[in-house]
């Protein structure tokens, strides 16, 4: 609490009222705190997954579950390959999003449009990959409440491996999907010169925060499901 006192005396200009103590408008403050609460949603999911895994004796080996990629033959054994492609797609779309935000700061409409299109394409590509993977696993007999995979030690596995996999990647996929929708809206607003008229591209920044958060969550989901 002494922090607050010093802030109000020494750095009087930020905390004294009449302006934002963070030097950002309220929408961005709200977006940050929304993302923080969303981090707790995902955190709860992943921690629940960890808790169930800790309370279970055996667990399937991810390298034996996720070992295929599109157009591969039946017996393909290529663990981590497809998911690393998905991961890179999301990282690159995050990069183009940063570039779009940067272009927005420079009031460069063309740059914003170009990079937003790349970001949207990246998002759709990621969703397509996920759709393929879900479809593939479903064909192998995996779904909510169904788990064809056995534990790494050869014992029967509970269905919680697939339960959590589909729930968490599904929830993340839902975030990606809404992110793509938001990005498309931002693109349309850019094309119709809404931001030019406002004189700033702050909306793009907020959409960018959301999109990076989606990427951030994937970093954790990817690690928890495919690597650990």
């Amino acid at each position: 609490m002494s922090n607050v006192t010093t802030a109000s005396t020494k750095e009087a200009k930020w905390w004294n009222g009449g302006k934002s103590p963070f030097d950002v408008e309220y929408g961005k403050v709200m977006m940050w705190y929304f993302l923080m609460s969303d981090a707790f949603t995902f955190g709860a999911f992943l921690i629940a997954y960890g808790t169930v895994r800790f309370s279970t004796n055996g667990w399937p080996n991810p390298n034996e579950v996720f070992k295929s990629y599109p157009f591969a033959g039946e017996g393909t054994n290529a663990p981590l390959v497809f998911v690393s492609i998905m991961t890179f797609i999301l990282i690159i779309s995050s990069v183009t999003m940063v570039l779009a935000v940067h272009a927005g700061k420079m009031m460069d409409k063309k740059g914003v449009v170009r990079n937003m299109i790349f970001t949207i394409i990246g998002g759709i590509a990621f969703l397509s990959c996920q759709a393929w993977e879900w479809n593939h696993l479903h064909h192998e007999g995996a779904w909510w409440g169904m788990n064809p995979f056995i534990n790494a030690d050869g014992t029967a596995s509970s269905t919680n491996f697939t339960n959590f996999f589909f729930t968490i990647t599904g929830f993340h996929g839902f975030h990606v999907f809404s992110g793509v929708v938001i990005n498309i809206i931002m693109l349309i607003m850019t094309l119709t010169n809404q931001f030019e008229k406002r004189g700033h591209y702050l909306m793009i920044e907020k959409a960018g925060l959301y999109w990076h958060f989606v990427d951030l969550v994937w970093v954790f989901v990817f690690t928890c499901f495919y690597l650990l």
Partner: protein
Amino acid sequence: MSNHDTHEHGDPIAEIKKVTIILSVLTIVELILGFWMIGVTSEGGRLAIKGTIVILMLAKAFYIVAYFMHLKHELKNLIMTIVVPLALFIWFITAFLSDGNSFRNLRNTYDPHFKAQSTIKVEAKEGHHGEEGTKEAAPAKAAETEKK
């Protein structure tokens, strides 16, 4: 926080390039570790690799939040209000996972049905799962390995 200035921190494009490379390298290292782990069977070895992967994951998260989400260039006030509440995750994770572990011990001790379920070996339903499925020799040992 007095040196706050949005146009101050060097060339943004160069920074984006740098961070992109760092993220890619970290991901590649993670993947290499992941491939390496397939062959590692010792419990300590797997644990060490998993620990390294978690650290790399946190490093990636740091770069995304700090640079892509621009948090590093915000005022310290904002950074603190974002970062400090996230410390709650420490106890959140510790308590949940340790209680999960305790629940497993409880079930193994007092729930014979659960214990039996997790020691009976099964044949995998399809051929191409079966060959990997039975390669582990000591089920109890492997169960210990997998719990982490």
